[in-house]
């Protein structure tokens, strides 16, 4: 696996950027890979658009932009129109099926995760939907080791939220 480009699109407050950080941290610090993570978001603090990009590679990442996403994660309906064109033919499209409805089949594989409803019902907190998705993604692709991701969660998430985030991640691993 040379270079994997991951694009995550959603709205503010969903932890889109955190997902990117976790992927990058796991890859870079614990999985012996190189990674670069970038991001942008609109100025609304809640409900605005948010986007994170991660590139994971065995060698140093030269070009730091996602050009065509190997993996596209969509966490909100708004993001579909914006980012779907960015997926690589044959890429993997991961969606939060509770919030993303308008995806038509195309030249990509779809991994559909009812992350928000699981987070809501089982964790009582929809904000960890992102970690459920990460779990499902890792389970599906083996992109990174589970231990690395767990370490990344340990160092990146505020103390009091760690347990919940880990739990959500592990719940995600059980999916698919």
């Amino acid at each position: 696996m040379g270079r994997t480009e991951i694009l995550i699109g959603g709205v503010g407050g969903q932890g889109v950027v955190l997902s990117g950080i976790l992927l990058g941290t796991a890859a870079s610090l614990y999985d012996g890979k190189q990674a670069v993570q970038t991001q942008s978001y609109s100025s609304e603090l809640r409900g605005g658009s948010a986007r994170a990009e991660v590139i994971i590679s065995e060698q140093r990442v030269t070009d730091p932009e996602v050009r065509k996403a190997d993996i596209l994660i969509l966490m909100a309906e708004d993001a579909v129109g914006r980012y779907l064109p960015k997926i690589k033919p044959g890429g993997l499209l991961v969606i939060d099926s509770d919030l993303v409805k308008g995806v038509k089949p195309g030249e990509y594989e779809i991994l559909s995760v009812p992350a928000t409803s699981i987070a809501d019902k089982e964790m009582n907190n929809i904000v960890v939907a992102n970690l459920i998705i990460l779990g499902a993604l890792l389970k599906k692709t083996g992109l990174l080791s589970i231990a690395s991701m767990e370490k990344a969660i340990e160092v990146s998430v505020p103390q009091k939220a760690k347990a919940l985030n880990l739990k959500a991640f592990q719940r995600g691993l059980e999916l698919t």
Partner: protein
Amino acid sequence: MDEKRVCTGRYFMMGNVACAEGAMAAGCEFAAGYPITPATEVANHLAEKLPQVGGAFFQMEDEISSIAAVIGASWAGKKAMTVTSGPGISLMLENIGFAIGVETPCVIVNVQRGAPSTGMPTIGIQGDMVQAKHGSHGDYEIIALCPSSPQEMFEHTVIAFNYAEKYRTPVFLLSDAFVGHMREEVVIPEADKIKTIYRKIPELGTDPLKLKGFLDENVAPMPIFGKGFKAHVTSSCHDEYGKRNLIDISALDKFVRKLSDKILKHKEEITLVERDYEGAEVVLVSYGGVSRAAAEAVLQARKKGIAAGTLRLITVWPFPGEEIEKMARKAKHVIVLENNLGQIYPYIKAEAAHFSEVSFLPPKLVGEIQDPEDILKKIEEISK
């Protein structure tokens, strides 16, 4: 260097945080700023770390007072910096001119964002490149560095402080939202591996009347406050003693030229570039984040057997015209890449056009650095 200042280790760190860590490592003691996306993380991190070593970050009422406070602190003998984005720089320009005029070491970090005006705050563009050099009224030289990664956000911030102190001048770190918000591996070395420079000050006890504290091409020792130098530091045209002169054109001439010459005389030392154009016919010239796409494109081109190369400007100001000329004398084609509509391009072309064909490859979308594939196409086209 104080060990407490250097957080030696390996991190997956955001560029803006790395910048703040660089400032810590460089010995920054005072920071002042005003919140603005996408620069806030630098301020937040400094606000946390500086007080731990006896410094502080001050949130001022605006950017005008931020740079003013920084200049004041610098005259009080402190290593000082501010951080903002384009709109903040636009407000600081009068006082940046002041800092130039009275030769004040300080570091100004500009995490550039979508512009003009309020624009698009979280998108990085290289939109304020010439502003750094010409934004304030009048002629002057300034130093500006362009990092392309979080690692360089750290390293260049250290260099920026060193240049500021050495040449008694404001130094720009011209980052952008893309690099500033980028996270990547950052390795921070041990404290004793980090070179830091402190400004020269006159010998304590020097007779104030004999003290030439200004307008020396070789950088006059700085008569900082509180040491009995009785320094007269004025934004008006002045002579090497700091004495105001508001009528003699020859005094104005000296004022303007000496300030510039101080930087130009040391241009060679100040200039940092990455040259990778041995034997290349097509050379890509770029800086900052864009240079990573350029490097990738050249990699691809070479794979295809095209004699391509890169020249990356780390120091963009003072403009390294000599480097451009040297390169252009060897190259057939020069392609300039910037994440803007071509701001440095005329400066490059001016030096290169006599020797080679020069063209500008604009980003497909301003705000997104050129796709290596598109660059490659352009290279192939040109070298046909």
